Each structure stands twice: as structure tokens, then as C-alpha cells.
């Protein structure tokens, strides 16, 4: 498949995944804020930190308040990571590879776009309770995943899309962990308090992990939550699970059955194996924050090597000649 098309497929799926994650974060955080002490900064700043958008937020606004954060992460066309921007980019991507996707996929992306654009025009962030908007964005994205799965052949395009989705998902889970967990650890005196439990539950809900976690572990503990979100092999949003499936897709594309055929496969395989052969106690020994930080950097490395191995366009080809 065309390198440009593969790259676009990869990014289109990353953008959709990002938008879905943001929508879920907003919904969960909104719920959480209703039951937390009324301190806007404490309630909403972590959200902007999780998404990695805090440096930009800081340059734009002096204070943290609910409506501003909701606008910034949900609707702001100037924030390249806002839901609106992600969906707009995903749609532009879909448009530029229109022959590679199905009519059903295109129409669904298009419909999400019109919904989000309508939300921007209606200034929904000013609503007291915009949760319905975010719920619908999340559901519409999930519907799109389904349409993608049932209408598109398992060709290289589908696999590149899948890798994009999984890389983005692993990144987002690691970021939620990093920030939320940090907050939790900083208030050890409240462990076991109702507020504490609520925060922990919210962390799990941010990545749709609450139900499956309870089923597996029952009790909420720091160690188990970390183990579940980082190392679980079966939970679809855990970091390891994302890497396992991303690697499978990459192998489908290259046809390799072991070892590696290129830099991308090498880096991804290595990162995945390391997660496979580590205990959660080892993670804590390294320091959770340090561990997650390194993970994110290496995941960026995987993304770069994917670009170099598959997506590089004319400029690179000519240099190679």
C-alpha cells in the first residue's frame, strides 16, 4: 500500500482513539468533580496534565476553571489535541484515503464530525452539564471501531490503523496512570477514606477498566490497579495488551514469524517483551513515575521507527537512492 496512505491510516486511528479517550476522561472527571471538594484547580488541572496539554494551557489561560478546561480539551480548534481538532484531522485523513476505507466508515467519521462541529457552534462547553455530548462522542467512536472491524478487510491498511489505535491507547493509559497515581500517592493519610476510594474508582473508569478490574481482583489496591493497567495480558486497554496486539498486526504486515524485519519491529518487540517479563514490584522499585515516563519515550521511539520503516515519502526515498 502507498506509504502516505499507510501513514494516514495510522494517524486517522490515533486521532479517533485520542478523541474517544478525551471524551471518556471528561465524562469521568465531571462525575468525580461532583463529589469532590469544590476546588476547581484541584478537580480540573490533573485532566490537562494527563493529556499532556498543560504547557499550552498555561500559556493561554491564567486560571483553571471547569468551563475553560472543557472548552480547551473538548472544542478548542487551536488546541491540536482537542476532541474537535482530533475529529477534524481524522476526517481530513479519512477524506484523503477515501478509496481505502468503506462508505460505512467514511459516513460514520463524517457524522461524528458534524456532531462535534455542531457542539462547537452551539457553545456546549457553556452548559452546566455537557456530559451527554461527551458520552455521545465516546459511543460514536466506539461504533466506528465496530464498523471498521466489520467492513474492512484485514489488509495492511487495517493493520496500520490498528497499530495506530493501540499505540495511542497504550500511551493514554500510561498517562492516566502517571498523573492520577501521583495524586493518590501524595495523600497517603486518606488511604481507605471514601474520597480515596472514589479517586481510585475514577482512575479505573477513566480507562473503562472498573468492571473488569473488580471482576479480577475485587478489592481496590495500588499494587493491583497498577498491575492491571500496566501488565494485564487480557484487558484491552492495559499497556502490555496493547503492545501484544500491535506486534501481531505488525507481523501480519511484514510476514515475519519471529525476530524482526525492521527497526519498528525490533523496538516494538523489545518493549513488549520487557513488559512481559517484569513484576509489578520491579516497576515500583524503579519508581512508577520513572517507569511510565520511560515507557512513553520508548513508545514515541516505536512511532518514529514506524515512520522510517514504512511511511517515509519521496524525500526519504531520494536520499536512500
Amino acid at each position, binding site marked *: *500500500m502507498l506509504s*502516505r496512505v499507510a501513514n494516514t491510516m495510522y494517524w486517522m486511528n490515533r486521532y479517533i482513539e485520542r478523541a474517544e479517550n478525551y471524551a471518556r476522561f471528561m465524562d469521568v472527571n465531571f462525575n468525580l468533580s461532583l463529589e469532590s471538594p469544590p476546588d476547581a484547580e484541584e478537580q480540573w488541572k490533573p485532566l490537562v496534565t494527563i493529556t499532556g496539554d498543560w504547557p499550552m494551557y498555561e500559556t493561554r489561560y491564567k486560571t483553571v476553571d471547569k468551563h475553560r478546561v472543557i472548552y480547551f480539551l473538548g472544542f478548542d480548534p487551536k488546541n491540536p489535541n482537542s476532541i474537535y481538532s482530533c475529529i477534524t484531522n481524522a476526517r481530513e485523513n479519512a*477524506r484523503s484515503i*477515501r*478509496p481505502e476505507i468503506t*462508505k460505512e466508515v467514511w459516513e460514520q467519521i463524517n457524522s461524528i464530525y458534524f456532531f462535534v462541529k455542531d457542539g462547537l457552534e452551539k457553545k456546549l462547553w457553556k452548559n452546566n452539564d455537557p456530559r451527554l455530548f461527551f458520552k455521545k462522542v465516546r459511543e460514536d467512536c466506539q461504533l466506528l471501531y465496530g464498523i471498521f472491524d466489520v467492513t474492512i478487510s484485514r489488509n495492511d491498511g487495517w493493520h496500520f490503523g490498528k497499530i495506530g489505535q493501540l499505540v495511542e491507547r497504550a500511551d493514554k493509559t500510561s498517562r492516566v496512570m502517571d498523573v492520577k497515581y501521583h495524586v493518590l500517592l501524595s495523600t497517603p493519610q486518606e488511604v481507605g477514606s471514601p474520597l480515596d476510594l472514589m479517586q481510585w474508582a475514577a482512575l479505573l473508569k477513566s480507562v473503562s477498566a472498573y468492571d473488569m478490574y473488580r471482576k479480577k481482583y475485587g478489592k481496590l489496591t495500588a499494587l493491583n490497579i497498577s498491575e492491571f493497567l500496566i501488565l494485564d495480558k487480557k484487558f484491552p486497554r492495559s499497556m502490555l495488551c496493547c503492545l501484544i496486539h500491535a506486534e501481531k498486526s505488525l507481523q501480519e504486515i511484514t510476514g515475519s514469524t519471529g525476530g524482526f524485519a525492521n527497526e519498528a519491529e525490533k523496538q516494538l518487540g523489545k518493549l513488549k517483551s520487557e513488559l512481559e517479563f517484569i513484576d509489578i514490584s520491579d516497576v515500583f522499585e524503579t519508581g512508577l513515575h520513572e517507569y511510565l515516563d520511560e515507557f512513553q519515550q520508548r513508545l514515541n521511539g516505536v512511532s518514529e521507527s514506524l515512520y522510517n520503516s514504512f511511511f517515509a515519502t519521496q524525500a526519504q526515498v531520494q536520499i536512500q*537512492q
Partner: protein
Amino acid sequence: MAKVDFTKYETTGFYDEMFKATNSVRPTYEQFKKRLEKLSKNKLKFLQHATDRAQLSLGMTFNVYSDNQGVERILHLDIIPRIISDTDWDRLAKGLEQRIVALNLFINDIYNEQRALKDNIIPKDLVLSSAGYLKECIGLRPPENVWSHISGTDLIRGDDGNFYVLEDNLRCPSGVSYMLENREILKRTFPEVFERLHVRPIHDYTHHLRDMLESLTNESPASIAVLTPGIYNSAYFEHAYLAQQMGAELVEGRDLVVKNNFVYMITTKGLQRVNVIYRRVDDDFIDPLVFNKDSMLGTPGLFEAYRKGNVVLVNAPGAGVADDKAVYAYIPRLIKYYLGEEVLLPNIKTYICAEKEDCKYVLENIHTLVVKQTDGSGGYGMLIGPKSTKKECDEFVAKIKNNPRNYIAQPMINLSRVPTLTDDTIEGRHVDLRPYCLYGKEIKIVPGALTRVALTKGSLVVNSSQGGGSKDTWVLDSN
């Protein structure tokens, strides 16, 4: 609820495609009128609204740029179709075939023997000064000697009920995706009417297109690509649509690379050879090494690969020499010259400003004429004398005097009208007709066309960039 009602529909002054006179419907429209009259006005509005929604959802949009902000528009589809009888159509199709054969013979002649110039059938200067004439193409012979494989001729029906050729589009005519999608949408809008009538199908267009493209190469399987300038081009929807329908790759210039005069796509598995490129990028922009040096849309080396016969470009570069609006005036003579036949589809009387006599007439009568730029398109660079102010006419007089080669003029033709939905009623609006010809080893013309409609009351300009919309076009089979 008020029903749709045609008793007050105004038909005077123009040829109306639906009515001979008020309350006297033409046979082609009988069934359709019956159906419409059963609908309430609200239902009709609802159907129109559903059509707009369908277009948006399909992404049949184009961007209009003003103050850097892209505004997304749909090409308005009016749900009342333009219906043509099969007798009219069959006559049209014969005329189009004749024309496209002669035009291709002409292009091939110009870049090779130049017989028509030597025999003084058409002035040499006029041809060689055309913006579409490319000296880089001298001596080239594309497969089958065909240069314009895909053409879209603009026709109009005059007061007398006859069809005339308004202009030839031999380079990258657009709109065929609207012909195809309009039909899909109308089948959902008026299923009952389709059940009762035999509308000739057009859905096989993209199959014929693919067959035609494949027939131009000996490679099998043929690797076919559609070359687009990208998503910001106003016809991008069509490029993507055609590539998808044909199962061809949709590529941009940066996806291609030329090595040793062969053209390749840059894929995730390395370079992959391309045999035929249906390019929707203008001549000027296809190769910065040969044409416009600043072009970011093209691929360096593409033209040399084409010259060497290692890739087929469709349509062939240089074909534009024959759709120059001044060359147009000579086409009846060229048909006679190359084919020994009388022209089947007449031209509109055309005054060539490059010729002294004609120019004098144009300057003296500009307020009664339509003046066009010879290399213009999209309804830009033209003057409609009878509808323009003295000042606008004077501006054109100056322009013509300054560069007569660049202008032609024609009497104003009252384009025929078709009933069209307006805000609260149905009124006649002027239309033209663009059928599409495919020409490879043989000629294929699917029985359909894009009908463009000037939505503004009284307007004769049907271009989408100037407030035009479209209609589905039905060719009725009477058998």
C-alpha cells in the same frame, strides 16, 4: 395540505424541457408530473432536504476559499430531473462520437503532420498560439493515437429546441461523479417513478472507464492510478470516488517517483510500477522539470517517462489545444476535413477577435454578445453583454483591443429551462448538458449526463463556482 401545482408555471419566452406551453406537458415528463402532483409541497421540501443531507453524508462537498477559511459546500442537487427522450439522446450521441473522433484526429495532426495547417483549414497562428498547445508534445503518438480519452462536451438547447455545442472540454472535465451519485440519490427520492419508467442505466460508467484505461497498456494486470492534486482541490471528491469505484490507487504527485524513466508508487513494501495514470492535475503542473517549475503537485521526470512510452497519461498532455475557444469556431470545418461528413451537432455562431472583421463586429455589438476568454473555464473571464453595464462592456472592449487572440464572442443563447424548486414554489431555471465520452480502442458514451442549472432567477451561468447547481439527467427508453 397544498399539493404541488403547475397551473401557474410560466413557460413563455424559453424552450421549457417539461412543458410545451403552460398546462401542456411533454410526453417525457408525463409520469413524473403525475407523481409530483400527488405530493404536498411540504413533502417535496422534505425530499429536497433529505437530498442535501445525503450529499453531506457522502462527502460530496468542495471547499470554497475566502479569507483563508475553507467553507465546505455541496453542489446543490435539485430533485426535479432533466428528462431527455431516447430519440434526442441517440441523435446527440452520434454527434458527440463524430466530434470526438475528429477532435482527436486534429490533435494528433497538430503534433505530427500538421496537414490541417498546411491545407489552410484553420489558421496556423491561431492554433500554435493557443495556451493549450505544448511544443513538448511534437512528434508524440499516444496509444491508439487518442489524446482526449475522457471528454465532457457542454451542450445547450436553444429556443428552437435544437442542441448546440457550447464548448469542448478535452483536458480534465469534471462532474461525472455527480452524474453517478445524483442518480443514486434520485433513486431513493422517487423510487415509484423509476419503477414505472425505463430510465437508461448509467452505473457501468466506472467499469467502462477502467476497461478503457486498461486497454491503453499491454501490461497485465495493469497498474492504474488516479493522480489528484489532493484534498483541497474542488474536485477531490470525484477523484477519490472514481479511484474507489474503479479499484485504482488514488495518488498524489509526492506518492510517485520516476527512476530510469519508469514511474513507481512509493509503498510500504518498496517501489511499485505504474502503467496508466488518469491524471486530474493540469498539464502545467504534472512535471516541474518540464512545465511549471514551482509545481508541488507533480512528479519530476513524469513527462520524460511518458515520452518514452513507459507510462500512459490520460488525458494526454497537449490535448487542450483543441478545446481552445477560438479553435472551437473551426470544428465544423475540421469535421468535414478529416471525416468528409457534415457536422451533426452544430456550433454556436462564434466571432473570433483575432480576425479583423469579426473583431470589428464584436467591438461594435458587444452589448448584444457573450464574450469569453479563449482559455477560460469555470464561467470566469466572461461578459454577458445584454446583462452587463456600460462600464463592464467598456472594460471588455479595452481587454479585447489589448489582446484580441484571447477573446471570442457569441450571440446570447437563451438556454432551455427545467422546472426547479425555489424557496416556496417551482420555477423554470436555465440548464446546460454535459455528457461524458470515453475513447480508447472504441468510443463509449453512457446514456446520461450532468445537467447544470443556474439557480439564480434569470441567470444563464450554470458553473458551480457561480451559483450553479445540478440535476439528475434521465434518458428515457420508449421501447
